[in-house]
């Protein structure tokens, strides 16, 4: 494990260079050129790390608990009332009209339109309490239930957006309109990376086989917005080549490539001496990182060093690139290698008419790997300083979408007024449930947690005051939480 995770602007200078990905020793060793600290400082300044160009991360005043974050993002809006948020009264009201007092001028998607008169729908599967903590989890999620004592359930989340893309954008970037930096980009920008051989923010996506309604993974879900693009998520593809153009051309051997890159660095070093442009030094460093990724990425994706019992924990799909199970194991391997923000997105949680059909596949494909990841991190002692977050962009209506008589086509519509996520590790209290929705799972009523509050809390766990991680753009200081957000202190360990 690399000891230098999350280096900060106030770290000693050599570490700062390290943070930039500049292996100066390597460079000077071969190219024998000199460049002073001013050039390096300007490089830092240009990239905003020292605040010369808008970056304004002051000295940390919060002890960082989470050195790395894995966000298991469930696109589509997992149905909180069927999975985690147990509401016995839904059984009593099953088939009855939604009580008017819960509606109060609320806006729903056009698929629902006017919600009055809609019929309530009971949970599809039974709920039970689990573990010492007695957390309620439905039979859809047996593996997650088995680690309930490691989890902190947030049952009072609520959001402003009602359709997928704006809601996901809102959760990940703090704004419904695309184009703002996402959480991973903010953290990558603010804290740098702990890995010399891999990018600091990595994204992977998956979707269950046979899912009829998959949402698109827009690249603004991991964009850097107005932050420099080197802070954006590096999207690993769900195939044998997770990084594009990683492989040397056919016939060009690694030895020859190494030699050619040495020659290239020397030629670029001459140019650096001649023109004094510090950008050349960055380029030399990035070509070196590219070369290291040619080695580190195949090594990262080679699971042959994983013992059988570990692979088995993640379930049968773990060997298939592009599945959620594969991505969860990749997430652990990336975390071990010092990558700071890992975003695994799984689509297909949009059960408008498939609560009794596709929801089972959805849970089968994600329940076991999610639980395995938490257990695996815990066994390795990594859970203490790794924050794992599971959740989507909103919940689903406690009333039915579809025909009550046609069980095969039961569904629920988008529901932004209450939904559930869970957190594990990284400085969060284990084995608790925080906040509550009302007796129908309709509105967050006890300790409501707005999306901006969740974001503020995640930054806090990383050692960042969300009001101070700002970037000046278009004449204004922007931040992840806009002008909102409060840290949910009650869940901090």
């Amino acid at each position: 494990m690399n000891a230098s995770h999350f280096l900060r602007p106030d770290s000693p200078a050599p570490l700062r260079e390290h943070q930039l990905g500049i292996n100066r020793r390597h460079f000077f060793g071969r190219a024998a050129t000199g460049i002073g600290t001013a050039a390096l400082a300007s490089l830092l300044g240009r990239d905003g790390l020292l605040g010369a160009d808008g970056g304004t991360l002051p000295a940390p005043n919060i002890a960082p608990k989470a050195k790395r974050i894995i966000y298991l993002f469930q696109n589509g809006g997992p149905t909180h009332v069927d999975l985690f948020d147990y509401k016995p009264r839904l059984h009593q009201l099953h088939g009855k009209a939604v009580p008017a007092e819960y509606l109060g001028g609320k806006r729903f998607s056009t698929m629902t339109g006017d919600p009055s008169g809609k019929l309530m729908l009971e949970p599809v599967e039974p709920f039970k309490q689990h573990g010492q903590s007695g957390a309620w989890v439905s039979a859809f999620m047996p593996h997650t239930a088995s680690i309930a004592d490691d989890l902190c359930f947030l049952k009072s989340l609520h959001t402003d957006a009602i359709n997928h893309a704006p809601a996901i954008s809102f959760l990940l970037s703090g704004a419904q309109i695309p184009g703002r930096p996402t959480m991973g980009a903010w953290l990558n920008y603010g804290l740098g990376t702990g890995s010399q051989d891999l990018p600091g923010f990595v994204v992977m996506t998956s979707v269950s086989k046979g899912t009829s309604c998959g949402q698109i993974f827009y690249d603004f879900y991991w964009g850097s917005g107005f932050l420099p693009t080197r802070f954006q998520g590096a999207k690993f593809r769900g195939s044998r080549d997770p990084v594009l153009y990683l492989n040397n051309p056919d016939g060009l051997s690694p030895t020859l490539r190494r030699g050619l890159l040495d020659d290239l660095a020397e030629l670029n070093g001459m140019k650096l001496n001649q023109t004094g442009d510090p950008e050349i030094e960055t380029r030399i460093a990035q070509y070196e990182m590219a070369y290291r990724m040619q080695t580190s990425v195949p090594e990262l994706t080679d699971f042959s060093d994983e013992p059988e019992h570990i692979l088995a924990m993640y379930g049968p799909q773990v060997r298939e690139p592009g599945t959620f199970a594969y991505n969860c194991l990749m997430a652990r391997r990336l975390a071990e290698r010092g990558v700071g923000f890992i975003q695994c997105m799984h689509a297909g949680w949009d059960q408008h008419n498939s609560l009794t059909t596709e929801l089972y596949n959805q849970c089968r494909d994600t329940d076991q790997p999610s639980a395995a990841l938490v257990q695996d991190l815990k066994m390795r002692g990594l859970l203490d300083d790794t924050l794992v977050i599971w959740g989507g962009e909103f919940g689903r209506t406690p009333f039915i979408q579809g025909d009550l008589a046609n069980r095969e086509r039961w569904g629920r519509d988008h529901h932004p007024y209450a939904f559930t996520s869970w957190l594990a590790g990284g400085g969060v209290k284990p084995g608790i449930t925080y906040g509550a929705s009302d007796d129908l799972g309709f509105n967050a009523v006890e300790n409501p947690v707005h999306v901006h509050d969740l974001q503020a809390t995640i930054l806090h766990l990383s050692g960042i005051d969300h009001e101070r991680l700002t970037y000046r753009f278009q004449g204004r200081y922007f931040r992840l939480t806009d002008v909102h957000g409060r840290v949910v202190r009650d869940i901090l360990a």
Partner: protein
Amino acid sequence: MPLRPFQLLFATLFLPIVLTSAEPGREVLFSRDVLPILSDTCFQCHGPDANKGRKGDLRLDDEADAKRERDGHRVIAAGNADASELVRRLLSDDPEEQMPPPDLGRPLTSTQIATLRQWIAEGAKWGKHWAFERIERPAVPETAHPIDALVQRGLDETGMRANPLAPPETLIRRLSLDLTGIPPTPGEAAAFQSESIRNPQSAIQNAVDRLLASPAYGERLAWDWLEAARYADSNGYQGDNERTMWPWRDWVVEAYNKNLPYDQFTMQQLAGDLLPSATKEHILATGFNRNHMINGEGGRIAEENRVDYVMDMTETMGTVWLGLTLNCCRCHDHKFDPLTQADYYRFTAFFNQTPVTGAGGSPQTAPVLEIAPPEAIAPRDAARKVVAEQKALLAKAAEGEKAALEKAVADAEAKLKSLETAVPKVMVMADQKEKRPTFILDHGLYDAPGEEVNVGVPAAILPLLGDGELDRLSLAQWLVSREHPLTARVAVNRLWQMLFGIGLVKTAEDFGVQAEYPLQRELLDWLAAEYIESGWDTKALLKTIVTSETYRRSSAIESPSDFENDPENRRLARGPRFRMPSWMIRDQALAAAGLLQRGIGGNPVFPYQPAGIWDEATFGKKTYQQSSGSDLYRRSLYSFWRRIVGPTEFFDTAKRQVCEVNPLRTNTPMHALTTLNSTTYVEAARVLAGEVIKSSGDENARFTLTGQRLIGRAPAAEEAAIWKRSLARAKEAFAKETGAAAKFLAEGESKTPAGLDPAEHAAWAALCLNLMNLDETLTKE
């Protein structure tokens, strides 16, 4: 070219130029020195936004309010800094009184406080934001090129020394890349060099004239315009259906090539349909407004979509012509600029007359303009008729005839579909007959209309001219009026940014109060005045700029201290040096190899792309069908742009989702992998190597040609020594591994010429690929 080994002995810290400061003996100017401080540190709570957040019943953006008497004191007591509450609060160490409040964490510097004190002491003279002042042509001495004279003034003030001129081989490469996006051929470079020796002035004039007359000029300028216009070949969002807006893209190329004056360029794109006796070309131009994304997601409310589209049209106009970030005003009055939420919705009212309802998600939502020769339209119309006839027959057919007729309908429809795709339909603008009312939308929500507003513009910028019915054409005419303070400044700034890598105003998208005061204000204004008074002649303006010494200077950092003082070259002592846009790097590689196809316009093409990219992004619904033959080597401008997953070979481009005018220039390992390993570059290296080998048997002659093709010059002796070493490494590696050379040479579709020794060819190809990754190759310097 001899290498000049010089060590850069920098001091320990770099000090950026302080753009706003109270320098002893220097007059404090409101717009340059005071307004930026007030705006940056005070307006958030004491600014124009009346809806929320204004604190303490104080407006510091309003002279009368800031200076009025309140309970015996004044926030600003003109002429008396010590009697001013503002100064007292700034200096207070009581956290209850201190301004800005300490918990904002953004205190003023002592220099800023000194500036405000001096300004108040000198009478607190109020003014206007600089970018809203009329564009006046500054006086310049007639002895020098006006640009150089103005730049020299700034250099003299700071004691900086201008760089010498770049050598001819550097200059011709710079000019060619800047004006056409394609490097000079060795022949063009040689001709320029020899003419430069005889007559440097005529050499540069002739070269610039030749480049501006090249059809490649229009293609080069079009790229930046397409990014601003969020042009793409698909809708975006789920489904991401393909559209056929490319005839509009070709209109842009042609408009640049025929040097359509920028005022016409503006009016035709914003309101060509409303011009008296509008031609088909005028209507085609209005496709500009329709390049926005279209959301066909199930469950979307049509009106919500429609409002989104209108806002996108409005905000794009705001960024491209006004250089203002209007989007803040969707929800509230602007925090900094004197723009109200009502101003925003008055702007939207110009675009709100579109007949588009927001329903559906067709990539060819009417109004559309069919762009096709009659020979494509006639058979399509005939096929439409056949379908209608067959359907009519089917409707009244007896049971026994139905099966056969159903098949006939299906066949006719299939035939029609293929004929329809041969008739591109460009979405264009029109106004509906019945006027649609426009409302202020609370928080920008389509279903929360407030007060009704009419078309209008913010008087703080320039009152709208004329009277009667105001429409988009009135808006366009307002934008290009001589009195408009923004349009010309914003436009020349983008051209400057294209050439120098950074605008005279760094934020090309924002000329508002929060934008920096331009260090070269006189230069910006001179260029803007020149642009307007030349009749908005873009080619003439570019020629004026690139023939200046300022543009022609060497980009090397000659003096460590000059670099420390001005790392971003804002004082313009040096020529520009920055990594080229990724599309230009690709075009350069194809040109260097002799592969580049120079045909202009037409259907988008599908160059090399790794398998599976589209499938993964669309859940298998779209599969990339790679082009073959010459379409693989068209200019990057013509690559098909799928909005949800753009072409993979480009990096740091605009995302083509919303208007973007500020180029990204990052430096990542992914970029390195692209130019090291992707098929385009491997193939171009192989083809270039083949040409180099065939050109001569002499190794040095081959090196010279390779250098000329890639970096516009032959290598220096020290460089050639390393090239030689690379070649030896490659020869050895390919000799050692049987079959490796053949594999390496097999990449890409083009044929390898006969008669080349595979081991030698592969070794030269490996060298060329490496040299395509030189910093110098990737950089315009």
